């Protein structure tokens, strides 16, 4: 019979994670500097080392900054048409000292419109993504937490929603809710619900079979507690990644729906998609009117996509182990 406590493990156990090599040993020493880093903190740290994530973050930060600071940095108020008397049916003045990016066909300052447009895109993107996120998480949670008919019902609902082309759904919603930005928000948000729901459910089903969930159940925790404090938090990773990617789509879809004329409001309303729509009539006269908002849409979407993809990479469970 041994009575001695096992001698403490060697100062640092040979790195447990799989090969290759001593890399792990060296790394764990480094990581010990960051005592108590949660999974999310670690992901953040990994992203900070990823140039792609930094590019994405810089674009997104610039976009958010411009959107938030629009009232202070835009040369002219939203919807103003300071140059309206300079416009002729066959002449749209280009850049000048007064209007650095020129005017549009209504006599609005294009630079101001782009800045205010960032604000509109941000609001539409964030609110619709949150709508999709909450709706999807609620539905996915329902399906993921209860198996059986609740799950079946929720998933058939999701299938039904997925079967409808998103643009069509969006147009129908706009037709019912009327032409304004809130219909666009609802339309984009609702379309995302099934995607989030499915993602969360899948992720939860995967987590539900992990040993730590069994362990939690063995501790005598109720099903609800296990779901809410273990399964759900661990299942949110892919959902958060998706949300970031949806922000990119939302910016594009908002533009698309505005482009199709679902936006409502004044024609001078500063919204990138609408600026594009307006620009097609003057494509020959003033191509910059189409190019500038188009660039803004693409760059912003790219920023969110880069950020989302690098977040996905940083949260990847395969990366988790190797760190």
């Amino acid at each position, binding site marked *: 019979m041994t009575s001695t406590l096992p001698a403490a493990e060697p100062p640092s156990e040979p790195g447990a994670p799989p090969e290759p090599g001593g890399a792990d040993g060296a790394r764990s020493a480094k990581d010990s500097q960051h005592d108590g880093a949660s999974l999310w903190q670690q992901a953040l740290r990994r992203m900070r080392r990823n140039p792609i994530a930094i590019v994405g973050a810089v674009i997104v930060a610039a976009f958010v900054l411009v959107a938030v600071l629009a009232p202070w940095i835009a040369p002219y108020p939203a919807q103003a048409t300071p140059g*309206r*008397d300079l416009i002729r049916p066959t*002449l749209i003045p280009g850049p000048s000292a007064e209007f650095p990016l020129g005017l549009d066909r*209504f006599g609005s300052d294009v630079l101001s419109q782009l800045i205010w447009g960032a604000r509109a895109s941000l609001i539409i993107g964030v609110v619709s993504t949150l709508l999709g996120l909450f709706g999807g998480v609620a539905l996915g949670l329902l399906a993921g937490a209860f198996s059986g008919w609740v799950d079946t019902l929720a998933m058939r609902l999701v299938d039904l929603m997925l079967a409808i082309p998103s643009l069509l759904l969006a147009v129908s919603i706009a037709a019912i809710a009327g032409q304004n930005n809130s219909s666009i928000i609802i339309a984009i948000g609702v379309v995302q619900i099934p995607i989030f729901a499915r993602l969360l459910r899948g992720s939860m089903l995967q987590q539900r079979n992990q040993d730590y969930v069994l362990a939690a159940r063995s501790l005598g925790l109720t099903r609800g507690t296990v779901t809410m404090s273990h399964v759900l938090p661990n299942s949110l990773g892919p959902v958060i990644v998706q949300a970031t990617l949806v922000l990119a789509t939302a910016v594009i879809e908002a533009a698309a729906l505005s482009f199709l*004329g679902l936006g409502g409001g*004044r024609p001078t309303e500063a919204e990138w998609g609408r600026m594009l729509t*307006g620009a097609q009539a003057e494509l020959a006269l003033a191509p910059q009117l189409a190019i500038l908002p188009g660039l803004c849409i693409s760059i912003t979407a790219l920023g969110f996509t880069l950020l989302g993809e690098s977040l996905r990479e940083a949260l990847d469970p395969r990366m988790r182990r190797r760190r």
Partner: protein
Amino acid sequence: MRRTAQWAALAAAGALILTSCASQRENDDPTGDGTGTGDGTGGGEEVTFTFAASADPVALDPALANDGETFRVARQMFEGLVGTVPGTPDPAPLLAESWEVSDDGLEYTFQLVEGVTFHDGTEFNAEAVCFNFERWNNFTGLAATESLSYYWLKVNGGYAEDGNGKYESCEAPDAATAVIHLASPLPELVAALSLPAFSMQSPTALQEYDADNVQGNAEAPVLPEYALGHPTGTGPFVFDSWSPGEQVVLTANPDYWGEQGQVTRVVFPIISDSTARRQALEAGDIDGYDLVGPADVVALEEAGYEIVNRDAFNILYLGMNQAVPELADIRVRQAIAHAVDREALVAATLPEGTEVATNFVPSSVVGYNEDVQTYEYDPAEAQSLLAEAGFTEDNPLTLDFSYPTNVSRPYMPTPEQVFERVAADLEEVGIMVEATPLPWSPDYLDRIQGTTDHGLHLLGWTGDYNDTYNFIGVFFAQPGMEWGFDNPEIFQLINDARVLPDLEEQTTAYEEANAALLEFLPGLPIAHPVPSLAFREGIVYPASPVQDEVYNMVEMPEE
């Protein structure tokens, strides 16, 4: 012409995504010439004139339609008793060499051109004339509704079956003389007969192909065989084929009684999107198109294309619905009239050559009144009028303002820009604007013509023929949802003037009506925008203010 239904905004946008259908244009030009035109010297060579249509014709039988695209095609195949003086809206002899009107205005005697035959060989004579008049008057069922035989209903006032019409009978004392008897005077009849809706059609063909038998229901009428594939008239071109959504093809009528012209074949490819039409022209797929956007005019002109302007025979106005209490106050309406800088608006948003409107009729129309109240641009005056009406900075006037999206009308090429100018002017004097953008058809028209709560709106009209009633009668001769007022005095003035048989008397009466209207100010006339067409270099096009453009008069370039 009646405001015609356009593609819904969505469909228009959808068309953007698809590529232009122009590229699908069939090119069976035997010369192999890519532009579809021959050498232009005739001599048995085929000369094709390709003109982009923005939509399919509703029917090939113009008696059952009222839209521009149908009439554009019909004008090539059909002729009426009356035409127009080239380049004007005024009536001129066509199938009728001359006419006489009795003093009481109830009997019209037409002397017909002789030796004319329909495309099917049927002889054109007084009996054929009477056959056509009787046909229009005896429409029943779906055919006798506003959505199909619109013009007969509007001009005549009714059908035989309801007894509301002014037409009584037609007799043919000899082959070349047709006499029309009316129950009550209809002085605009001669001018109205220049409409394609009143074209002469072959009685044989009408009977053979069951032309009056409209089936289906009001939402989806099913047209008879005649209207779908056997139009038979006396015009310079004969129907060849119609592939809905793609194109309509006509060929020259070898037995045409008038001037044959250079063009031997006419193709109307259907291109609903205006950008696609421009691109089709630039690609050489078409020879010309209508409703050129003001912004495209300069670019096309610089690139060597021919820009043809029609004389403006239209009106663009700002409607004010008096069913809305604030707008029932004349001071508010006057304030709005003084607030809008129409000169600047025209300069900034409408095609060159466009005039600011003072009347609801263009100046070329008989009955136009130079001395109406004009409401000069005067923001200070507007503000004081608003203050009088009780609206101040603390209690601002807020108005709903509807405008159509993604549409271009001859009288309103850029609605958004016009809206934005007007709205900005109104805001300048302290009126708050709540924008209501709607797709043109059906939403916008439904809201303006079918609801009572709309405030301000933009709309207009293109005249069909030279007649004041054709403009103001449509708007102001009876109560309507668009305007929301009931002013019996105005109604009376207009309706009385309409039936005055003496042209001079009638002109004075219409002038009086126009003056009364502008004082009452149901809306603000804005402008008479000049519609533009664009053509391949070297083409000479017989532009007409009422679009009476027949392609035997088109001159193709020498090549």
